[in-house]
């Protein structure tokens, strides 16, 4: 009897907790959608910030995140391959692996400060490269550890089978092991991209922001997230509405990338 009662209590408590968690999430999503969609106009996408749109911000954010991804993906995947396939579980490997894990949870504002000291202060101006570098530093450890973990899931027999057919180690890694881990590695890249596309802190004092459309990475660079931060603090209604619209668009983008990530994970034979 006591056992059954306890079971019921725990069931009720955990169900309640689940609903509280989901409840807040829905509250956020509903408010965001309601206010966001209401403030959304066609001109939001065709005008730059200076004219009350977010076109230059989207382009800027994606440019910085895109450059970060282009540089970080090959670096991170190769580092993951080194850790799992060549590191042979030595001390150095475990130190690098631990450092990389710690980096995953490094406060993003700290990364921003670090990049500020190296890429902003010496040049005397906020710039797009510094923004991209910050995002890249955030992304790198995530890609390293997902690649590392996904390669670890590939059974060692698969490597041995490749070697037993007369393959050399690097060919087996590139043609078989990486193929077998492709879905996991791709998902890791997508999710880390989703993570950085919504980051504000690393951009605040690296790229800062720009009201105008620009592709000049040497100057202040437009950023969607930094703009949301700024707009939300302005006193006028129009700015705050634009912040809602931008937040809604950003959330939709992140949600979309996450869904794609999940879809990719589920499809077995990519």
């Amino acid at each position, binding site marked *: 009897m006591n056992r059954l009662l306890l079971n019921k209590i725990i069931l009720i408590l955990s169900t309640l907790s689940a609903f509280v968690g989901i409840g807040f999430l829905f509250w956020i999503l509903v408010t965001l959608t309601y206010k966001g969609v209401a403030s959304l106009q066609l001109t939001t996408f065709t005008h730059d910030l200076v004219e009350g749109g977010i076109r230059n911000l989207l382009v800027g954010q994606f440019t910085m995140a895109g450059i970060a991804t282009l540089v970080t993906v090959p670096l991170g995947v190769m580092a993951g391959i080194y850790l799992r396939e060549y590191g042979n579980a030595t001390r150095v490997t475990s130190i690098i692996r631990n450092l990389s894990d710690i980096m995953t949870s490094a406060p993003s504002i700290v990364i921003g400060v670090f990049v500020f000291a190296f890429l902003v202060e010496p040049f005397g101006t906020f710039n797009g490269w510094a923004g991209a570098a910050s995002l890249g530093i955030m992304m790198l450890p995530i890609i390293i550890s997902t690649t590392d973990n996904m390669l670890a899931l590939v059974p060692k*027999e698969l*490597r*041995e089978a*490749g070697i*037993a057919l007369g*393959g050399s180690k690097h060919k087996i890694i590139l043609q*078989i092991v990486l*193929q*077998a881990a492709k879905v996991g590695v791709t998902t890791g890249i997508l999710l880390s991209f989703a993570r950085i596309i919504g980051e504000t802190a690393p951009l605040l004092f690296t790229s800062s922001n720009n009201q105008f459309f620009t592709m000049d990475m040497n100057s202040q660079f437009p950023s969607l997230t930094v703009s949301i931060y700024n707009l939300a603090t302005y006193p006028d209604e129009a700015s705050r509405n634009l912040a809602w619209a931008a937040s809604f668009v950003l959330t939709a983008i992140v949600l979309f990338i996450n869904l794609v990530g999940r879809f990719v994970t589920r499809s077995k034979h990519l």
Partner: protein
Amino acid sequence: MNTTQKPIMEIKDLRFIYPGAAQPTLKGNNLTIYENQITAMIGPSGCGKSTLLRALNRIHDLYPGCKYDGEILLRSNTTGEMNDILKLRKENEFIKLRQQVGMIFQKPTPFPMSIYDNVAYGLRLSGIKNKGELDGRIEKALKEAAIWDEVKNRLNDSAMGMSGGQQQRLCIARSVALKPKVLLFDEPTSALDPISTAAIEELISELKKDVTVVIVTHNMQQASRLSDYTTFMYLGDIIEFGPTEEVFLNPREKLTEDYITGRFG
């Protein structure tokens, strides 16, 4: 007993130590593998039979720090001389060795690619690029592995969608395609159902026309059904080696008899 059988591999006083291990896993083994015969290795878990098998194509060398001592001789195709494979150092020498001494694992190991590409993989590695030649070799290998009829209409499908037994036969086809001299089987049926097991056993019996087979198995019936020679190992030593009939019906050693009759193991 047929006295014309020629040794294809000879293991002489082989000692093997895994990295970091205090004790050698193989403590001075001597064994002869005869050409076009099936040699079974039996013994309780941890006796070293898989370690010995995996030394025969030096797959151990994939991991650093393994130490060999002694000789493993393999007869050369061209000169007929017995060459010590423990003397190999360069990567291309290893690649050549493994093309001659193939390996099939406990769990099927299809590569995440099409059925065709699975078989083509080793062939391409060995330098065959010509589409016509590839097609011919692949069809022949799949026929030899008794799986051609099941896959001929879906060669471009992913190999991951096949059943376990089919995957294992595909892996055998993949190895056979390279025309190896010796094929090593490491408990090839222990992950398969009885019907797939019977198919693999039949296939192995067929294969011995062209290749020499060494098979590690936990299944004593399988060893007695399938093999021409049996070697019984215990704690890193080869206790007994001889024609399968003799080992099973009239073992010389008490330990062998105890193991075969199921008194321990």
